[in-house]
Structures are given as structure tokens and as C-alpha cells.
């Protein structure tokens, strides 16, 4: 499991390193598309002005030409890798594009998106940080965010639990339990010991996940100063700095792990068979995912937090109350598992 995790982190990091030039090429392609769109309109407007001079059209052309020039400047900044110019010029482009739309020009990027990008760029300029592609960054906190999104979700947790689940079910399948239950220890205590053991294993896995995601980029790529202050956009329109995001992600992931191990302990000790417990865990997490997809991402629903990244980005106000939900549900699940196995023997 650890080897698989390290392999995933390593592969993703190499992919991100290799994608750095692609990110730049894609930015150029993206803004070139807009420049072409504006240039075409300018050409048409010029022709129309020659036929019938109109003040309104002239105004549109003036703004259009300015926008085209700014886009050209922005593309040059990206090509030269001058990130401060790039950020400032992107702000200028969007301010002009908003004006351009007001004079009936067509710029196919929404005003809301442009406003958000302007605010982000201003923040980055204040911090003295270049803009990163969140899904392909090699900077430590943003790479950790990518790993969190990729691994700490219903799918990743199901895989983890299916692998860990055999620790309980094999004891029954190999009939080790017949011997264990003859020991002078209460059965509930044995359940608790298993829970603690699995939790510790999970915590070790989590610490390896976070440490490797941090150390790999930190040791191989030059980290930017203040990169932990990088602003991340939240669903409510505000920003959260990357450092706080990672703190919340670490805390949430411990809570989610506790909840997941609680589910596993209950299902494992109730089902006692690998295939049954695996199928039940799959069904439980698929159901949880479906409930979130259908608008049940409520504060009291523990599955809201199973996708750690989405919980932080979409429900900033649920932190830290969500942790109480996770800890509470985990405690209830563990209590049921201990109570359920109190008088149940092994055949």
C-alpha cells in the first residue's frame, strides 16, 4: 500500500515536471484564441466603418484595438517568462475586455470569471508570487493539494479500506479468531485493539502521503518564498491561503480516516468475510458519493468530508464543526462494533 502510494506520488510529480512547458504553451494558445476573436471583430468593424461611419462602432473599434494590443503584449510576456508583467497585463486585458463587452464587443469569457482572475492576480502581485496551474504545479503546497484531491476521496478511501479490511476478515477466514476468543480478554477490547491498530496503520499511511508529497517537490524543485500564502479560490468567492488549506486538509483527513476505519471495523466484525465486507464497503461509499452528488452535502453528513478537497473548497464554513461530525460518527460506529461482538462467538 505504501509502495503504491509512493509510486503514485512519484509518477504524478514527474508528470507535473514534464508538463511545465506544456502549461506555458497552453496559456499562449488560450490567449491567442481570444486575440484572434478580437482581431476578427476589429477587421469587420474597420470594414463597416469605411462603409458607414458610426460613433458607436468607432468607440468599439478603439477599445477592440487596445484589447488586441494588450493581448499581444500578454502573449509576449508569457513567452518571455516575465511573470509579473504577465499578471499585470492579464489584469489590464480583462479590464479592457469588460469595457469591450460594454461597447457590444464579443469576448467569450464571463465577467464573473474575469473579476475573479483580476482579484487573484492582484493578490499574487502583492505577495510577489507567479500564477501556478493548480492541477500541474511542482510547488510543494499546491502539489499536496493535487494529491489530496486525487487520493482522499470516496474512490481512494474504498481502495484503502478494501486493502485494510483483510486484517479483520482474514482472522475469521483463517480461523485465528477461534483461538483469540479463548484468551482472557473481553471481545469488545479485541475490537478496540483492532480499531486502534488499523487507525495507526492509516495514520502512518497518511503521514507518508503528506510527507512524500511535500518532500519530493521541496527537495527537487526550488520553492518560491511565501508559496504557502498562495491564494486558493473557494466556492464562496473568497480566497484561502495554501498553508491554511494544508492544515485543514491534514486535520480533515485524520477525521475522515477515523470515520472510515470506524466503518471498516463495524463491517469487518459484522460480515467476517472479505468478499462480503468489501462489497458492503463499496456499497456504503458509493451510496455516500451518490448522496453528495444529489445535493446531500450537508454539515451532519459524514460523507460530505470524504472528498477532503471539495469539503474545504465548497464548504469553508463547515470547518471545524465537520470534525465533530466525523469523530462522533466514528465513535458511534466503534461502539456498535464493540457492543455487537460482545456476545457473538465464532463457529
Amino acid at each position, binding site marked *: 500500500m505504501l509502495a503504491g502510494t509512493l509510486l503514485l506520488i512519484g509518477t504524478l510529480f514527474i508528470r507535473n515536471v514534464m508538463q511545465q512547458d506544456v502549461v506555458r504553451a497552453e496559456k499562449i494558445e488560450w490567449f491567442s484564441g481570444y486575440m484572434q476573436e478580437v482581431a476578427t471583430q476589429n477587421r469587420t468593424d474597420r470594414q463597416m466603418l469605411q462603409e458607414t461611419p458610426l460613433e458607436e462602432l468607432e468607440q468599439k473599434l478603439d477599445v477592440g484595438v487596445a484589447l488586441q494590443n494588450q493581448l499581444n503584449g500578454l502573449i509576449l510576456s508569457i513567452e518571455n517568462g516575465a511573470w509579473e508583467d504577465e499578471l499585470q497585463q492579464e489584469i489590464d486585458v480583462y479590464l479592457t475586455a469588460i469595457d469591450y463587452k460594454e461597447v457590444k464587443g464579443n469576448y467569450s469569457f464571463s465577467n464573473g470569471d474575469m473579476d*475573479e482572475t483580476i482579484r487573484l492576480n492582484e493578490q499574487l502581485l502583492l505577495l510577489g508570487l507567479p500564477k501556478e496551474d493548480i492541477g500541474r504545479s511542482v510547488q510543494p503546497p499546491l502539489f499536496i493539494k493535487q494529491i489530496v484531491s486525487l487520493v482522499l476521496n470516496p474512490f481512494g478511501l474504498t481502495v484503502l479500506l478494501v*486493502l485494510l479490511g483483510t486484517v479483520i476478515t482474514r482472522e475469521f477466514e483463517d480461523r485465528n479468531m477461534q483461538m483469540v476468543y479463548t484468551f482472557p480478554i473481553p471481545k469488545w477490547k479485541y475490537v478496540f485493539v483492532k480499531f486502534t491498530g488499523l487507525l495507526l496503520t492509516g495514520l502512518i499511511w497518511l503521514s507518508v502521503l503528506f510527507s512524500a508529497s511535500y518532500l519530493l517537490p521541496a527537495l527537487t524543485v526550488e520553492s518560491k518564498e511565501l508559496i504557502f500564502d498562495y491564494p486558493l479560490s473557494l466556492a464562496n468567492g473568497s480566497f484561502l491561503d495554501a498553508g491554511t488549506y494544508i492544515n485543514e486538509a491534514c486535520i480533515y483527513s485524520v477525521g475522515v480516516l477515523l470515520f472510515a476505519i470506524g466503518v471498516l471495523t463495524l463491517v469487518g466484525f459484522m460480515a467476517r468475510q472479505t468478499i*462480503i465486507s468489501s462489497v458492503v464497503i463499496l456499497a456504503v461509499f458509493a451510496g455516500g458519493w451518490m448522496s453528495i452528488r444529489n445535493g446531500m452535502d450537508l454539515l451532519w453528513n459524514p460523507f460530505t468530508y470524504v472528498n477532503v478537497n471539495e469539503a474545504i473548497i465548497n464548504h469553508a464554513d463547515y470547518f471545524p464543526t465537520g470534525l465533530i461530525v466525523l469523530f462522533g460518527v466514528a465513535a458511534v460506529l466503534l461502539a456498535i462494533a464493540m457492543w455487537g461482538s460482545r456476545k457473538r462467538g465464532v463457529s
Partner: protein
Amino acid sequence: MRQFLFENKKMMKKKSVWAAVFITLLSLLVLSYFHFSAADRIRNGNIVKQENVLAQYKIWIEDAETELQIAEKNSDAETGDAMAAVIEKYTQSIVNQEKWISDYTQREWKTILEEDIADFELYSSEDGSMAIEGQRVKSFTLRAALEEKRWFLKNGIDPVVQNTSYNLFVPTIYEDFTGRALDYWKQVTARYGDTGLTYFYGMMPNFLMQIFILIGCFLFGNSISGESGKKKKGLQLHFVQPVSKTALFLSKYVSGLTATLIFVGLLVSAIIMSGEFGNGIGSLEYPVLVYEGAEPNPYGSEFNALIPENDQFHFIPLGEYLKDVLMMGSGLLFFTYSLYFLLALGIRNQSITILVTGGILFGGMTILPVSAYNPFTYVDIHRALNGEIATIAFNPAIGFQHGMLALFVVGTAVLLAAFIGFHVKSRNVAA
């Protein structure tokens, strides 16, 4: 044959397998019930939204009536006439709106579709267009949405539930929205099948069939690994019996394969039958969009590009799609089961075997180059059958026939590898 029946009997006697099958079926039905409840809620939400519009019209009429009375008091004929026109306009709107709500509630789609078709004819005409947050909807999507509506009208099919009740778009690969436009597009094109067949069709892009196959392998593909564990050594007993190793291998392989096939069939049937929680099983005539692909550029593949204005498509009935899905699903099942069986010879822990099998399928699908003879290209059955992969790869050879061929040829090769592996294992066990 006797060996095969013996293996089947052994499998049938395992209570844990029966319990797992029962739990899977039950979970599937419960999740389906949730799905249909959600679809129903969204449908009711659409009705409520339109009722709110109706209430708004009534408020505007009341306001206009008040202004009309004031105008009459002040002998202001101009305002009076204007207000009378407003009242007349909104009264007509109320009639139309009430008719719409009644039609939508009773699933009388004819009038709604006719109005929608008229709108889409305008959008997809040379002078028309449609934009979301300033980003244009591509011509391909507009044409596809129009044709889909015409199909609905012609064949008397009900559209599935969407988060909007007008301008029902069909999502296509030609769209490249960004930012808020993308979020909005995802929201309005999310489709919730309200019949068993449309639910099944809607879940196919989410790898439903592949998940069923993997669960089937997990439950029934352990006939060898389950008998060669540290404490379970049933396989050794088989080797001292007067049974040929080939017969032993084949009986174990075929019994598991047959059980997996029946299991997957059962789950597919269950998901289609679960439509009874919603609006019934549905119609096999429901339209399925098939991409016809773009023309490769004569100057080289680097110049290949999708052309939304020119690229073509057609629709096929869901029954035809279902037949192809079941056949290609059988091919994929054979390939996946053979792979699982091969891996299970070396990995005793079935949880690891299933994760490795899933990892190979997913890795092969995403990392290996897309090609007509690459079986991993066909892991995504839905996109292989509707021409999406062929269109994006500019490779018209990717399709049903090549897919079946690739899956069966490579599946057979994997089976042979498993057979050799079994012989090697049997020697090791004997030693």
C-alpha cells in the same frame, strides 16, 4: 463436464458468495431508488420554478390593474391603453404557462417539444446562435440537440429529466467551455434517467458495466487462489486425483466465467428493472448520439481538428446500443476475467488481485496509445461504441468489430498465459 459441475456445486455452496450477491443486488436497488427519487425531486423542482413564473405574471397583472385604475381616475388614456395591453399580454402568458405546467406534469411532450424545436431551429440556423456566459454553444451541439428533439417527437419518446425545463441540451465532446460557463453547462446538461433503460444508459459513461465486471471477478474468480492459501490447500488434493490438469484448469476457469457472466447479467437486468421505482422500464427507441468522426487532414495528423460546423452525427435506438453494449461487455468480461484469473495464480489476496486488475485496466486505458487493436481502448465501452474515442483519435477503425476482435484475441492470449501459469504452479505445488 463432471469436473465443471463439481466446481459449480462448490461455488453454489459458498454462503459468503450468495450473501455478497444478495448485498450487491440490494445495494444496487437502494441506490437506484435514491437516483429515481432525486430525478423526481428535480422534475418537481422544474415545475415549482415554472409555477413561480406564473405567480410573478399574476403579480404583474395586479400591478397593471392598479395602474389602470389610477389612469382611468386621472383620465390618462395613454397609460390606460398601455396597461390594458400589459394585462392582455400577461393573461395570455398565464394561459400558456398553465398549459406548459399541465403538459410537463402529465408528460405530454408534444407541444413542449414543438416549441423547443422551433427555438433550436433558430439557434442552429445561419443567423442564430446561443451563448452561455458569453461563450458560444458549438454548432454541432445545437444540431445534435435539434435532431434529438425531432427524434423524441417522431417516436413519441419522453426526454429524460434535466435541471432545466426548456432549451434541453445534449452534452457533446465539441464543447470547450471554461470557468463559470463550464459550471453552468455541466449543471444544465446533467441528465437523470427516469426510466430503467435511460438510467442504465446514463450510468454507462460512469463505467457501470466495468464495475459490475470487476465485482463479478472478485466474487467468482478465486477458484484457484482460494484453494492454494497458507491454510487452505484444496488444490493439492485435486492434483492427486485422476483428473487431467487441463480439465481441472478449464473447469475452474469456465465455472467462474459463467458465474461472472450470469452475475453481470443479473445486475444489468436489476438496474433496468429498477426503473419501476421511477417512470417504468422505458423505451428501446430512446435516441443515442453516435459521432461519425471528423475527416483526417490530408496535410498530416498534426493538423487534424474537430470542425463543429461540418462534423456529422446520427442517432441510433437505445435497443441497438444496448445489444452492442452487452456484446462488447461480454468481450470485456472475457478479457478482464482472464486477466484476473492469471493474476490470481500469483496473488493470494483477492483484494490485491482486484485492485491490480482494476489498476491495469484503468492504467492501460489512460496511458497506452489509443488504437483499433489495443483492447484497453475498449475498456470505456460507452465512448468506444458511440464513436467518441474514434472521433477524438481521428481513427475510424475504432469501433465494435475491431473492439470485439481485440478483446477476444488478447483475452485468449491472457487465458493461454494463465493456463501455462497454472501448469507451472501445479508443478511447484507438487514439488
